């Protein structure tokens, strides 16, 4: 039992602190974007590290490998082939990318570049609107690819 010194957090303070987005979409901000818009964001802020159309080099490949995870050979694990939730793309890009200036993108631009990555992977169309309502509903190709670990696995 402690001295009880925690200070009450005001809702506005919590809102400022809370930068996470859940798979149910909780935490998604206002705004929206399309792949068409996102392409410009990508080419301005991402292409130097992730290559033309997310093909990778020098950094992580963001596109491809969809439906080809089984086997013994090295798998191409990308946003498209491996990530189970589209919300994670928004969450991760907003908090961690671009690597050299994380959290510098406007929410609008995060929506747009998220849409672009999903489109490059064939998950959504070029003009599909991605926002707080649509993003959690997107069915990712590997949505059911994960099993919780149990001893002996």
């Amino acid at each position, binding site marked *: 039992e402690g*001295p009880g010194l925690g200070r009450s957090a005001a809702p506005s303070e919590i809102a400022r602190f809370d930068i996470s987005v859940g798979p149910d979409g909780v935490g998604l901000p206002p705004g929206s974007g399309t792949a068409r818009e996102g392409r410009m964001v990508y080419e301005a802020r991402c292409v130097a590290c992730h290559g033309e159309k997310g093909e990778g080099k020098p950094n992580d490949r963001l596109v491809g490998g969809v439906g080809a995870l089984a086997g013994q050979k090295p798998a191409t694990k990308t946003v498209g082939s491996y990530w189970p939730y589209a919300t994670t793309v928004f969450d991760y890009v907003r908090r961690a990318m671009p690597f050299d200036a994380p959290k510098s993108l406007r929410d609008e631009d995060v929506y747009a570049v998220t849409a672009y990555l999903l489109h490059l992977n064939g998950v959504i169309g070029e003009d599909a609107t991605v926002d707080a309502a649509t993003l959690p509903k997107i069915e990712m190709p590997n949505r059911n690819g994960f099993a919780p670990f149990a001893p002996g696995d």
Partner: protein
Amino acid sequence: AFIAGAAIAGAVAAEPARAEGLAVEPWMTAPGSPFTGYGQPSRFEAGVARVFANPPNAPGSGAARTPLHRLQGMVTPNGLHFERSHSGVPDIDPDKHRLLIHGLVARPLVFSLETLSRYPMESQIAFIECGGNSAQLYQTEALDADAQRLHGLVSCAEWTGVRLSTLLDEAGVDPTALWVLAEGGDAAGMSRSVPIAKAMGDALVALYQNGERIRPSNGYPMRLLLPGYEGNMQVKWLRRLKLVETPAMTRDETAKYTLLRPDGSALQFVFAMEVKSVITQPSPELSLKEPGLYEISGLAWSGAGRIVKVEVSADGGRSWAEAHLQQPILSKALTRFRLGWRWDGGPAVLQSRATDEEGNVQPTREALLARRGARALYHFNGIASWGVAASGRVTHVYA
């Protein structure tokens, strides 16, 4: 003549002793260095350092590995504790850092470092192992590398801090909260979901590492300590804990730290590091000079609790002998094992196999790969092998 000591040893030498001053080492003839506020290792130990690699454009993303083969005992000195960071080491002003606890709680609360420092403390000597430690041993060819490069993502320290449950109790956890999303204050905002049972169990908000404030590369000014769990979950630079009903499905618990199996499905939420051991001496770079008696020494650990047995083989697993375990054997800490071995000068294959108090036995590499395939990447805990050549050279092999 009257020569010091020699008379007692029973033999008198003819030569005159130090007629003009004493023949001693140079460092005995002039005063040494003055005191310093914070000490450093000898300059002759400059080679005992973490090695690291990182992707292009991202000097702070990657891992720095502990030189296990240069160390002894169970404690890792703070300067050599392994590090895994996703966007460099933040330079956090402790007076400005805050920890927020919110989500499914009755009273969302904010804590400063100063506030937390007044709470009751607990210490736990615990290993931390990166989920990706020894990943290279999943590969089909044995990588020619040393213990540091292969297994150096594990370290052990005395961590001291506040029981997380004390803080969660103060916030009042809603019964619907089954997970805690933990988030770091680094540029990557590294975040992971922790099951509520662990958070209410032995988890600490750790403020001290081997007595002093946690090192920047290990989470200054505060980190989550989840004894026995994979390193990635023990979020460094802890800034936020959000109580939620379902896991947040962050990038690091979906795209990373999941184990891809041959059927294309992946194991997720592999929390505890399983029973494991590594021989640190002899090992690559520590070659044997000549036949004779050596001490085989290494480290064993288990996320399930205490190590109860470590067996050592010098013939690639055909025969085993039980090693001596250094006391104290602590739950979820590194345990040093040691065993004398007479090298006859012929080829040998050294292995170690640990057993924990739950009865879990470290599997062979073959058995592990049979279960998980070669692409699992994380949580490799199979038996590792060092080949000893007739020349005395020690290399990483599969046996």
